[in-house]
């Protein structure tokens, strides 16, 4: 018998604090497996954000920094400019990256900063209790859009990959999801491609990963997967928005 699925070395033995069925755990594992497979664990530096994944520095079994809210791409820039041969990545949620930290990610992309951004989009602020996020869907009920998101009060959702794809800077932009086994496998490929491009010094790579938040969406984990597929995919279509040579 051969072990075909086990905990990657790039994760510590610490249990995740995430809620039951939250797909952050799957995404952590995909990033860690990728780092293992590419042999980067001992030369990687990760940047944890503020948000649900703030404790990512405890979970990844490699050198980790914790950044102030939204600033992970700037912090990653500072690390990468000292350690150009290290694999430098940020792990950020949608509030962190697309609201308070939008400027930092856009300018890191414009500079073609040779870092990898793992951007987890679950359409809500998780850690603080389910407030509206820049990625919250129209009509979606949150604790600060109790009547459902509407333009007059909260504006429109942001499509980060599409926005960055209008610019010259990024080398790789991909949106994937983790709501089914096939999608998880595709997400892994995109993450791997992003890290490979960084190690080939191709420049800025970002993988947006659609993820669930059963607790703050007010659903059980399985219904959350359905909601992601039915509601989020039409707004956030999957695919590569910038690809190698493309």
């Amino acid at each position, binding site marked *: 018998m051969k072990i075909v699925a086990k905990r990657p070395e790039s994760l*510590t033995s610490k249990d995740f604090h995430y809620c039951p069925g939250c797909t952050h755990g799957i995404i952590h594992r995909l990033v860690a497996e990728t780092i293992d497979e590419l042999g980067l*664990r*001992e*030369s*990687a*530096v990760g*940047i944890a954000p503020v948000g649900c994944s*703030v*404790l990512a*520095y*405890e979970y*990844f*079994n*490699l*050198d*980790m*920094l*914790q*950044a*102030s809210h939204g*600033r992970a791409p*700037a*912090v*990653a*820039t*500072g*690390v*990468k*400019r*000292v*350690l150009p041969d*290290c694999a430098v990545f940020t792990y950020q949620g949608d509030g962190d990256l697309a609201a308070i930290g939008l*400027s*930092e990610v*856009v*300018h890191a992309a414009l*500079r073609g900063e040779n870092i990898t951004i793992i951007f987890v989009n679950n359409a809500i602020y998780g850690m603080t209790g389910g407030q509206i996020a820049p990625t919250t869907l129209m009509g979606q009920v949150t604790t600060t859009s109790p009547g459902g998101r509407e333009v007059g009060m909260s504006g429109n959702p942001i499509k980060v990959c599409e926005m960055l794809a209008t610019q010259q800077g990024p080398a790789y932009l991909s949106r994937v999801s983790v709501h089914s086994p096939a999608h998880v496998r595709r997400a892994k490929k995109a993450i791997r491609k992003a890290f490979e491009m960084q190690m080939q010094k191709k420049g800025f790579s970002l993988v947006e990963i659609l993820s669930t938040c059963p607790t703050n969406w007010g659903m059980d984990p399985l219904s959350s997967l359905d909601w992601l597929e039915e509601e989020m995919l039409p707004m956030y279509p999957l695919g590569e928005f910038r690809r190698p040579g493309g």
Partner: protein
Amino acid sequence: MKTRLMKGNDAVGEAAIAAGCRHYYGYPITPQNEIPEYLSKRMPEVGGVFIQSESEVAAINMVYGSSSAGARVMTSSSSPGISLKTEGISYMAGSELPAVIVNMMRGGPGLGGIQPAQGDYFQAVKGGGHGDYRTIVLAPASVQELYSFTRLAFDLADLYRNPVMILGDGLLGQMMEEVEIPVDAADTPPPEKPWAATGCRGRSKVIINSLYLDPHQLEVHNRKLQEKFSRMVEREQRSQEYRTRDCEILLVAYGTAARIARGAVDEARAQNIKAGLFRPQTLWPFPNGGLLEAAGTAKALLVVEMSAGQMVEDVKLGIEGRLPVHFYGRMGGVVPSVGEVTAEIRRLEGELS
């Protein structure tokens, strides 16, 4: 030793290079723009990194990143820009990261003006950002000191693993003076930093972090920081005296205000008034010991600042109620003249006799 005629802001840039700093991140703001301009030319010459960031906030977080990776790193700005950097400075103090932050102060509050001022004393000395932390604050009063204090700042930052601030002002940054540069200037090797996040090859992982969700752990962390700050208070007080041996009126001033106060001391002496000057070179830790010594023969203190009188509080604490503390200052970027400070000394002398 070689001598160069240098602009204050350029001297800061050159000193950073000499200190082994190879990473600079900053955002344009008057009156410190010559620092990024100088380093945008010099950093590539020495294989260093210069980034003009998208904001002061991004700059200080790039500093956070490079410092975490073990590099000597600097940013500079002026008053409103420093306000934006304070969150990052708090994070760096909390995460025990060394860095050098230069503030060439201008008039405030708000957008204020672009003329030299000293209104950021509280911000620099009393914390600025959130939480129980301190930064060593060096107060140069010449282009020479801008150079030597910048080099010193890198050493102190690494020694204590804490941000160090250089509190200059627009006048110091813009003026030109001779600077004596030690011949070994380019040879400072940055110290080993085993705590830095450089990839975990051959060792266990490191975490650079200021989050402690358990209040008891956070208190333990804070106690450790406070012990460090206590060591700074014991070891890092710096000051200079001028004509204080028999003085009756002791002026206390730093930076540009100290240069003017020194002129006023000479004027007053010429008018047979026994004036002297005590010049803090560190604003935090405030040189309390030096102040008490300098005030040995004094009957009154006169604090001179380009602000509403922010250092007055520390002078009162330092003198422990033994002498009356008076104040003369200008605000908004108005630089007081030697004549008006001398007149204030004479007025005070009249009150005393």
